[in-house]
């Protein structure tokens, strides 16, 4: 009992005040860290934080790129972007997408409960999912329409591009890395060849693919004709144009994923494969139980950065299709660019930028949370 009486509980130990010596050393460390970080923080503040704050301010103004008068308009820019006429709500609107959102929400909540996550987090996830599903039911009723239908069109196309291109880029990058790992004859050449497109500028990449996909003179059309198939106007057909852009993007940027996955594969201890083989594991089981877990950190990195990169699609679209045919490939960054620099409506462009930023941050946070925890 005497021991108990004289030994402070662990919490007391943790909460004990630091000695002046340790505290002073910590302050010194912080000062040194700030000293080394100062150049970065200055540049970051000037070119990232300040513009974001300024954009936030501009989004509440009718701010003309060339005009000299700015009128405070409150939430008008946001109303123009997110609202319309004769707006209504019903259960059946975007029913498929809402079902997916609800199913994903349910899965996340169940997972949180099983893992005994904090109740607030679980409730927050569920409430956010329900709110998103409810908001997806808002739409213009009969005789009405969105104030800026181009915004919603561009959001949809950006989401479609991201949803399709991201898994392809990750899956193909991993498959190519698996095929090219090890020191076999020709692997160095193929690694360099597959990475090479990534160093090209977007103008060169889009020029190459515009020629390739040209229905009159393109290599693809020539190949198809030899097979007895009529040339396809890839970039002029609203059903195919986005696929042409996805193909271009995959060719351009899959090389980096290949390199990242190759680096990740080299970090996996070969003895794990030997042990698995001795235990009788076949190729699939070695991949499933050794390679996949060993690549989790790399996969998280690739998935998050790829998702964000895909959201920012612009150069390929603007050069290859200008958002067409019609607005079949119009994407959000193009909409921002044209609103600000072509239509001179800087305040409105700033408002779209901020909403898009929040959307990207939200999706990235969800994805990071899902994948990073496992990693």
């Amino acid at each position, binding site marked *: 009992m005497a021991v108990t009486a004289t030994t402070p509980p662990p919490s007391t130990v943790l909460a004990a005040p630091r000695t002046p010596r340790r505290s002073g050393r910590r302050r010194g460390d912080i000062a040194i860290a700030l000293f080394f970080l100062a150049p970065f923080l200055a540049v970051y503040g000037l070119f*990232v934080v*300040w*513009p*974001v704050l*300024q*954009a936030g301010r*501009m989004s509440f103004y009718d*701010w*003309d*790129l*060339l*005009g*000299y*008068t700015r009128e405070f308009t409150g939430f008008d820019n946001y109303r123009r972007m997110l609202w319309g*006429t004769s707006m209504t709500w019903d259960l059946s609107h975007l029913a498929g997408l809402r079902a997916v959102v609800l199913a994903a929400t349910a899965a996340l909540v169940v997972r949180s409960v099983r893992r005994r996550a904090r109740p607030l987090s679980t409730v927050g996830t569920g409430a956010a999912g329900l709110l998103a599903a409810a908001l997806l039911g808002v739409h213009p009723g009969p*005789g009405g*329409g969105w*104030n*800026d239908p*181009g915004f919603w069109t561009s959001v949809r196309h950006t989401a479609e591009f991201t949803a399709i291109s991201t898994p392809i880029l990750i899956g193909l990058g991993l498959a190519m890395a698996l095929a090219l790992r090890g020191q076999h004859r020709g692997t160095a050449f193929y690694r360099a060849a597959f990475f090479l497109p990534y*160093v090209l*500028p*977007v103008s060169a990449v889009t020029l190459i693919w515009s020629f390739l996909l040209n*229905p*009159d003179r393109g290599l693809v059309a020539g190949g198809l004709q030899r097979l007895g198939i009529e040339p396809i106007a890839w*970039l*002029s057909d*609203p059903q195919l144009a986005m696929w042409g852009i996805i193909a271009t*993007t995959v060719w351009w*940027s899959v090389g980096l994923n290949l390199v990242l996955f190759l680096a990740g594969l080299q970090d996996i201890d070969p003895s794990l494969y030997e042990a698995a083989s001795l235990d009788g594991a076949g190729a699939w089981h070695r991949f499933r139980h050794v390679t996949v877990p060993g690549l989790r950190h790399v996969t998280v990195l690739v998935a998050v*950065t790829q998702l*964000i*990169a895909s959201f*920012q699609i612009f150069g*390929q679209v603007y050069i290859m*299709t*200008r*958002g*067409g*045919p*019609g*607005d079949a490939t*119009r994407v959000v*960054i193009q909409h*921002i*660019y044209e609103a*600000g*620099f*072509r*239509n*001179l*409506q*800087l305040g409105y*462009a*700033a408002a779209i*930028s*901020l909403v898009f*930023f929040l959307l990207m*941050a939200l999706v*990235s946070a969800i994805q990071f949370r899902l994948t990073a925890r496992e990693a």
Partner: protein
Amino acid sequence: MSSTHRRGALGRVLAAVTAAGLLAACGGNDTPADAGGADRSALAAVTDEQLKGATIRMARFFGDCEKTTTGVTDVAKATTECETIQILTNAFNAENKHGIKVERLGGAEWNTYYDTLNAAYAGGNPPDVAVMHASNLSDYAKRNLLLKLDEQLPVTGADIGDAAPAAKQGATYQDGTYGLPFDIHAALVHVNVDLFRKAGLVDAQGNPKIPTSAEEFLADAETLAAKTGKKYFGTARVKDGLGVHMWRSLIDQQGGSVLNEDRTKANVDSPEARTALDFMGKVFNGRYADPDQTYDAAQQAFLKGDTAMLMNGTWVVDQYDKEAPFEYRAADFPTLYEKPAIWGDSHMWVIPRQQSADPVKQRAALEFSSYLYGRSGDWAVHTGHLASRTSVLQSAEYKQAPQRANYVATGTTNANPVPPVSSWMAFNEALIARVDSIWFQNAPVDTALSDANRQLDTILAK
């Protein structure tokens, strides 16, 4: 995706608002709207001594061609738009009595030209003289960014009264003159006479029979398709505005307009608009015209002899006249309804207002603009565009240039400049997007036209 798009997750997220950052950076110009003007007396008072050696910066598109034009001052050697304007600039630098020097700023492509010009304005450093489309003029004139020229023109003696009606209208904003027109450029039809002849669509003199009604157009299209297996008509509808220009022209030919009478509201959902859409739906059915051609594809099809009649601009007349491997004829766009009308625009020279006006540079810019206005005949003869001056359009010398006599009416009466409303670029882009949604994405006509009206009204209200 940019090539820097994989440099760390946090940076990438924040890079999403790079556009916002750029926009923010462009928003800091606090110049008062009335700065930079100049009155007539200030420009007239500039002496020859002051002008001697004055250097002005010119912004233009039309391309780069330094290799073929350095030191050349004889415009007869010009074969392209770029060479013509560069040689005229060289000639001005060499010959003007004041000793003014014109330096060209960078940038050559017209489709990024206005982004560069806008950035220069936003940065408070616009050029001293700039080329501008009539369709863009109202956006700048409305914001008081251009020097109003009515009071200034007598200083150099430029006779704006000689400007062709379409060119003059394009240079005018709210009864003020803000530019000196260099040309009128409009859509024409470029005809493969061999195919017309093969289909029997020629008159007794062997001239191609241009249709005079929508019904005749479709009948001729069927005849030519049946007899030759080729397309009767073609134009660029994909990644280009020519298709929508055609649609708008057909509305104008019926006496309609995409705007109401006082130009304050859109009037896209009209019987005339539906008639034009219906007609174009019949034309671009795959048999008479390919519905999915880009500018390049439409041009190639014409030059290869697969299209009998191509709608394209004045700017290709000389090229087709030289390159077409068949008998080529340029002609006015057919009048299919009550009155002639075809999309037209105009290049003109404007003098941007500066934060701090320098009468010497403004006078020098006015001298250069007036010189180019005086040489619009040379520009037209060497580029295919229509001259901006009535006296030139009616001159024998102009009509003797290849094909020019075949489309004089486009310059004098038919060309219909875009309405002088502000935010025309935004208006036109929204219009193209909505009409394209009907053509390429099977959007219901009712929905697309009502959406267009709503969206365009929002733009016009700005």
